[in-house]
């Protein structure tokens, strides 16, 4: 089995996801900071679009000229587009930040982040295990 340390698709996907989560965290912090700012509108970053793009077969990989070439992993855009969330009723000051919604997003983000970092750790521990087993022979 080929094990490429530096072009690991799982690690790439996980770090892309971590990047998104930390962007989401920023946006949630921004929403919470502006919970009393008149006219401020709730924002969010898109997750599904990015992950679909990342996982799709048709995503642009490296161009290959021989069958032995690795198609590679499609580059993941490092920044997601933030957008205004529609459909949340606004208060009299035209602000529509919903504390409960933001707290749920906050928990989701922290939980997702903890999960992915745990998985990455497991991934690296696997590598470390193979390194140490090799040395002990």
């Amino acid at each position, binding site marked *: 089995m080929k094990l490429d340390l530096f072009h690991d698709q799982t690690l790439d996907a996980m770090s892309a996801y*971590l*990047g998104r*989560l*930390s*962007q989401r*965290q*920023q*946006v*949630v*912090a*921004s929403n*919470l*900071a*502006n*919970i*009393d*700012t*008149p006219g*401020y509108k709730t*924002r969010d*970053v898109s997750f599904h679009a990015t992950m679909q793009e990342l996982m799709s077969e048709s995503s642009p990989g490296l161009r290959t000229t021989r069958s032995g070439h690795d198609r590679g992993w499609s580059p993941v855009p490092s*920044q*997601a587009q*933030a957008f205004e969330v529609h459909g949340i009723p606004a208060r009299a000051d035209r602000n529509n930040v919903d*504390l409960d919604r*933001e*707290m749920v997003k*906050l928990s989701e*983000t*922290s939980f997702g*982040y*903890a999960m992915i*970092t*745990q998985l*990455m*750790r497991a991934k*690296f521990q696997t590598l470390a295990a193979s390194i140490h087993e090799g040395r002990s022979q």
Partner: protein
Amino acid sequence: MSLMTAIEVGASGLTAQRRRLEVLVSNLVNANTTKPAGAEPYRRKDVLFAATNPERTFGAALDDAVQGVEVAKIVTDQSEPRKEYEPNHEHADKDGYVLYPNVEPMEEMVNVLSATRSYEANLQAVNAAKEMAKKTLEILR
């Protein structure tokens, strides 16, 4: 690092809400402050928040989507002061009326609660970002 931006934004929220709390407490403590007849009585004050852009580090900010907050200005409530008939009061005017500030203690308490909750929410956001940064460091431990 973008989590630092999240912490910075959360901190701006903490500062702004604390500032608001200071103003609200000033209203509460002055709820019964009178001044000599003819002088302007204390008027209740409130803060006006405005969104700000955090400092950009390594293009960390998502365009203008991530914004901190600041107290843009402190506004004075221009509603009429409360007039009470207390002829023996030192600050009574010639008709025996004393002007009390336009502060409703109940209303201020509700605002204090709202500021406290918002402060807590920002604190949660800062803590969550801190935990996430910690988790990142744990990856290679």
